[in-house]
């Protein structure tokens, strides 16, 4: 009894003494903010069979139609390919539509993506910088100087520019060959042609501008004689620009010419036999490469590529199938869990 009454006093004393002390110490108390207390309001999603199920079905339902659409579109695209070493003979034209037909050349086993190759260019020279014109970047070595003159355009990429000429003729049933008109513009990116690639000055006389430089060793003509059209000559020649965009993979194709449509009623290429005439300059044997010519139409999704459509259909079906599997699992295990709960 005595002890307990003493205790009460004891506590009183304690409280009075610690009062002011406690007051000052209270400032050490952590702030009660939601962030500091890790109590921020949060959405707490959990991936369960139940929640994921609809997503799988929806993905399936969306992907399969897209896939079918892509596949059909791809199948409607007509593509025709010849390998260019067995050059000869008339070919049947498979094209029957009225849109533009695109002519590509393709190379295989050509490593445009080799590191030494990719960096062997001077973008500021190509952008029309006069200083770089006369002093090509070191990256262009060993294609920077020839006979002590700067090479314009310098580098391995420019030096190895594709220089075959491809021409397409319609074999008229009456025996005459009619050349198919093709445009050489619109084949490069608009931004490349108008911003990234610039001739050194806007001087119309390119010959004077390139005075003091020399052509790349493998070229037959200097850069200012690539075309007669001043808007397609020098560095802004579109064949050149197309070549300068290095391909991602060792087998690649590049846009060569566009066969413009005539009008909506007449097929761009008439039914019949055609002859492809090739001025064969470009050596590919040494690296076991191949050259191809491809004629293709284009849809909104680009060229013929069944892969995307098939992939979409496959993924859509897989998702749908998984949805079904999950439905079964959800039914089975979900029930088990529920029954366990109910049992209690």
């Amino acid at each position: 009894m005595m002890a307990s009454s003493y205790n009460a006093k004891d506590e009183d004393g304690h409280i009075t003494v610690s009062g002011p002390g406690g007051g000052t110490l209270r400032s050490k108390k952590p702030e009660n903010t939601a962030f500091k207390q890790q109590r921020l309001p949060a959405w707490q999603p959990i991936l369960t069979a139940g929640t994921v199920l609809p997503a799988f079905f929806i993905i399936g339902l969306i992907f399969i139609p897209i896939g079918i659409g892509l596949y059909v579109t791809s199948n409607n695209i007509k593509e025709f390919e010849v390998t260019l070493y067995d050059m000869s003979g008339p070919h049947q034209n498979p094209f029957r539509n009225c849109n533009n037909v695109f002519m590509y050349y393709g190379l295989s086993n050509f490593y445009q993506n080799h590191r030494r190759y990719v960096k062997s260019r001077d973008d500021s020279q190509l952008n029309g910088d006069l200083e770089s014109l006369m002093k090509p970047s070191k990256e262009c070595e060993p294609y920077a100087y020839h006979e002590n003159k700067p090479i314009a355009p310098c580098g391995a990429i420019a030096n190895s520019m594709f220089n075959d000429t491809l021409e397409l003729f319609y074999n008229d049933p009456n025996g005459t060959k009619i050349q198919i008109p093709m445009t050489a513009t619109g084949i490069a990116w608009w931004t490349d042609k108008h911003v990234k690639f610039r001739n050194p000055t806007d001087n119309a006389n390119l010959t004077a501008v390139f005075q003091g430089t020399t052509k790349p060793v493998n070229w037959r003509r200097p850069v200012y004689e690539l075309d007669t059209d001043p808007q397609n000559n020098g560095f802004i020649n579109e064949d050149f620009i197309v070549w300068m965009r290095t391909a991602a993979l060792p087998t690649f194709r590049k846009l060569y010419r566009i066969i413009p449509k005539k009008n909506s009623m007449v097929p761009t290429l008439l039914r019949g036999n055609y002859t492809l005439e090739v001025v064969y300059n470009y050596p590919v044997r040494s690296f076991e490469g191949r050259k191809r010519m491809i004629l293709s139409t284009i849809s909104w999704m680009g060229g013929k590529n069944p892969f995307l459509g098939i992939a979409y259909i496959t993924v859509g079906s897989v998702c749908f199938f998984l949805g079904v599997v999950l439905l079964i699992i959800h039914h089975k295990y979900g029930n088990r869990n529920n029954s366990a709960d109910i049992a209690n």
Partner: protein
Amino acid sequence: WEYYSINPFHRTVYIGHKEPPPGAEAYIPQRYPDNRIVSSKYTFWNFIPKNLFEQFRRIANFYFLVIFLVQLIIDTPTSPVTSGLPLFFVITVTAIKQGYEDWLRHKADCSINECPVDVVQQGKVVRTQSHKLRVGDIVMVREDETFPCDLILLSSSRHDGTCYVTTTSLDGESSHKTYYAVPDTMAFRTEQEVGSLHATIEYFVGRINIYKDKEEPVARPLGAENLLLRGATLKNTQRIYAVAVYTGMETKMALNYQSKSQKRSAVEKSMNAFLIVINTVLKYAWQWSPDRDEPWYNHRTENERQRHVVIRAFTDFLAFMVLFNYIIPVSMYVTVEMQKFLGSYFITWDEEMFDEELGEGAQVNTSDLNEELGQVEYVFTDKTGTLTENNMEFIECCVDGNVYIPHEHEDLFFRALCLCHTVQVKEEETVDGIKRGIHQGRPTSFYISSSPDEVALVEGMKRLGYTYLRLKDNYMEILNKDDEIERFKLLHVLNFDSVRRRMSVIVKSSSGEYLLFCKGADSSIFPRVVSGKVEQVKARVEQNAVEGLRTLCVAYRRLSESEYEEACHHLTEAKLALQDREQRLAQAYDIIERDFVLLGATAVEDRLQEKAADTIESLHKAGMKVWVLTGDKMETAAATCYASKLFRRSTQILELTKKRTEEQSLHDVLFELNRTVLRQRSISGYDLTHVYCLDFGLIIDGATLSAVLKPNQEGAGHGNYREIFLEICRNCSAVLCCRMAPLQKAQIVKLIKASKEHPITLAIGDGANDVSMILEAHVGIMGKEGRQAARNSDYAIPKFKHLKKMLLVHGHYYYIRIAELVQYFFYKNVCFIFPQFLYQFFCGFSQQPLYDTAYLTLYNISFTSLPILLYSLVEQHVTVETLKREPSLYRDIAKNSLLRWPVFLYWTCLGVFDAVIFFFGAYFLFDNTTFTSNGQMFGNWTFGTLVFTVLVFTVTLKLALDTHHWTWINHFVIWGSLLFYVIFSLLWGGIIWPFLNYQRMYYVFMQMLSSGPAWLSIILLITVSLLPDVIKKVLCRAICPTATERAQVGLGTNSTVKLNL
């Protein structure tokens, strides 16, 4: 004294810088550092070189430096910027942080060094600055001033030559400690007197030689009781004179660069090496024909051609190394460190771990160990003050076996308790410390002691009529029952130590009798008792102990004049000893403390801390093994253990105590216990429901423990006790170790830590005697009282109950956060680099990077860094409440389960799968076809950008799938960083950047977005990449959900209900 014994040099201090009289000793002018404190690491001039050196000593930073240098020197696929920029960023941020911290230290140093100090010079007090203080200066310190350096107390304004000191700022102990002046100088009162002192201090041996005119020098021993440590504050004493003996500083700056993710980075490095070697070998296999190596369109320069083939191979090797080094990103180290540093704030911010009463919250001293809090398997806890309040209350005393019954011995017993202690009386009210108001019409006074037991006893005595008044001029005054003041001359105090477990005083009563009173643990008293009612007292003590009370025995011995002289002689000799002083003192005590007459015993109650039982129960449920280590008697400790639910009624107690080993040999006992445990385990092996299985509790005492741990001398035939002991321990959920010496506590922790599973151990304690244990354990936690070495602990919490939240909530969170952080970092970099590896097969192994430089540089720094950092700071896979409610969830992450090889393998496979999807998805899309509706073609940079876009989205969305706790910040950061990627790419490709010598990315991103198939394939590839992970998650959850997963959907609560029913 250990502090000084590290200095092997003989140290002689000339007080007042006066030479010793000729003939005494040669005067050797000594050079000591001045009193300037330098805690800062750098100066303005050496900051940059020294800081850089420190930073590059880290192996990771050094590695990246090497990569950077390689990029500078040889022609490599990526520009030096890609590795230089992140490295620069990391180094700069660290340098700024360290510089700022150092600047703060400089400021603090400065204010300490400029602080004014009073020095006695030629008998006058001169005010000077702290840093000008020299060894040998005589310093005057006033009340409430802090000691400017380590001092030897010469004299004090108090007549008894003592002074009171608090060491709050040193160790947080607010109680007052008494220090004593050197007896020969304590009479000095004025500056003049002190200034005339002529003495030297032989420091290393602790002796002061005082030279008086024409007399033999007097040698006096110096002990810890004379030494005032820098940083302590003078209390209750007007002023003191003291001599400076140790100035300057001893900084112990151990830079602790300990990386927890070393295992992971080792894997990454070996993976890196694998990729490098494979690619280099393949490159040379592929380049076997010269046409492949150098086709006509792609010649080397002359220089390169002439290079030796070995050098060429070596540079190729380095180039691949540069290309693949991103698999170990610099940013990971930074992110992990930031996570640890910032994450630990959540512990200090936690309001629930704040204790109103103490006004303190949790503290984090090391953030390196946050995730280990989630891995604790063994918890070692001290009992007194940790499990219990350490708030003693005197319950009863037993004199000669009779509780409260008067007897001729009674008076002596009460006097003994009044005298045999080191309690001080505090007269004012405005002091901190342990306060006890005494309201008896007198000015209130308090008893203060470092031991709460003593206070409880002295107060208890007061309630029984014997009031201890004060210690004045070496006389202890007691107010007895009849309100008479009795005075005893205090001759010697034989201080308490944890080895002897007792303390004694020798006093001389007013009648001239010499009395030795001794008080201590029963085990240390009973063997020394020759008469008295031993049996009765023993019975009572045991009964009290069973009730969980702390018991102490009191005994006395009457000393004759000659016995006293002899004791005096022993003590003085031991104190003056130059070597092994501790040991010789112990010997002297041993000789003096014997032949006691037993007076009686006391019982003091120490209540359990609130929610201690609940906490222990939770820890048990969480699968942790809780060990209580205490110095108390077995019965007392066992009672506490039952009260705190460490042992339940169903617990089968195994005893491994001295009592048992006296009957049987230790060997037999051990084997028997082992058999019991194993039998039980084999039974429970059939029974899969562990719920009803019996659990074991082990009780072991200090003596048996040391026998177990002693190297076995009987030969190998008996096997190793240590192993058997560990085997038993492994099967016990609760272990009580009683009668432990402090060092044994550490030994036990060490034993468990070194056992073959290498479990993570946690030690929690509050006193100085727990420090060694805390240092030994992986995670040390300091409780309320023990700020004595709070710095030695890694975490400090105010109360034992906070341990629950600390481990079950914070520990759990930190562990899952860091686990995800490390795995995810690995995953995202596999996703990042593996396509680049695959690309080498399609670019002639030419080290052509797949992605643009900017993407390579920024991938880890900005596109994917913030979401994971934020995740690792705020993720809560289960709510705080659920974690607290269901401690068993802790078992889900036990044994490092989220960072084990299967999990790691899963992440790796996922990374490789995703990388293959990205790369070949893009490959088949690009394969020989047109991508745009205008027939134009894309190049290699578009290819890389497509892969990269899919990569960034997939990796970020994968984290989004893993996030269970979406706060607005998560939304902001995840969608924000994707948006940032898009905006950056638009900007990066939108302009001809004048400072770049290539414009390869110009309009690439926009052109890609203008193509329909690119959009469709990005969506497709992201979906496919995420699919397996989603399926795995859903299937695992549906088919075999873990407890955590059940808790997430709220099934866990039902299962506990089931158990309770």
